[in-house]
């Protein structure tokens, strides 16, 4: 069983993390999610995004989510989020869940992303072409 959680300021490459996980013959499904930054919000043009975190607590929350996935049957889990300046079209978050079967892998991958959006203390600021900026707030799905 492998758990990888991280907050990084460099470009996030999914393959770097997939290569760190040794498959043990039990994994039948790998579901990955990559969240990308968009260049618009409603009618505003977004130039760049800036992520800020409460690093110690964010890492601890990511680990808590990954451990919950393992307790529900995941074999390996990798949850990584960007911080700092993130350009348009870049990956801001990845969730990788490996399980014996696909149904559980899909379910836990979605669970891990929704949990990240609900509990991990990370903030995103959108900066627009007119030099205005907004700290965003997630819409929580209960």
């Amino acid at each position, binding site marked *: 069983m492998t758990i990888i959680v991280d907050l990084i300021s460099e470009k996030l490459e999914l393959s770097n993390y997939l290569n760190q996980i040794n498959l043990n013959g039990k994994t039948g499904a790998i579901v990955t999610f990559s*969240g990308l930054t968009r260049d618009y919000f409603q009618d505003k043009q977004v130039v760049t995004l800036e992520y*800020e975190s*409460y690093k*110690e*607590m*964010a890492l*601890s929350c990511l680990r808590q989510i990954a451990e919950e996935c393992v307790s529900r049957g995941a074999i390996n889990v990798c949850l990584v*989020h960007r911080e700092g300046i993130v350009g348009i079209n870049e990956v*801001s*978050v990845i969730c990788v869940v490996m399980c014996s079967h696909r149904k559980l892998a899909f379910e836990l991958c979605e669970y891990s*992303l929704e949990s*990240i*959006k*609900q*509990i*991990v*203390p*990370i*903030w*995103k*600021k959108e900066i627009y072409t007119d030099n205005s900026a907004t*700290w*965003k*707030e*997630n819409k929580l799905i209960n």
Partner: protein
Amino acid sequence: MVRLLLFAGIREHLKTSSLHVEAVSIEELLNKLKYIYPEITNLINTSIVSVNQVIRSHDYKLEVDDQVAIIPPISSG
């Protein structure tokens, strides 16, 4: 004295990422902040508070050297 960590809009308004504050409870700490910095009252009212990385209610009693963080609505993902 507790160490108070500030993030996002609150950090920007106060132009600092941490403060040291004398308070015996979260409620007292928040009331002090709102009194000294009335311009961030709305931001404080929509935030939650953690003590040593655990979310706590406003009646939670603080101890010396606790690390308190005001956590505005998050936007991870």
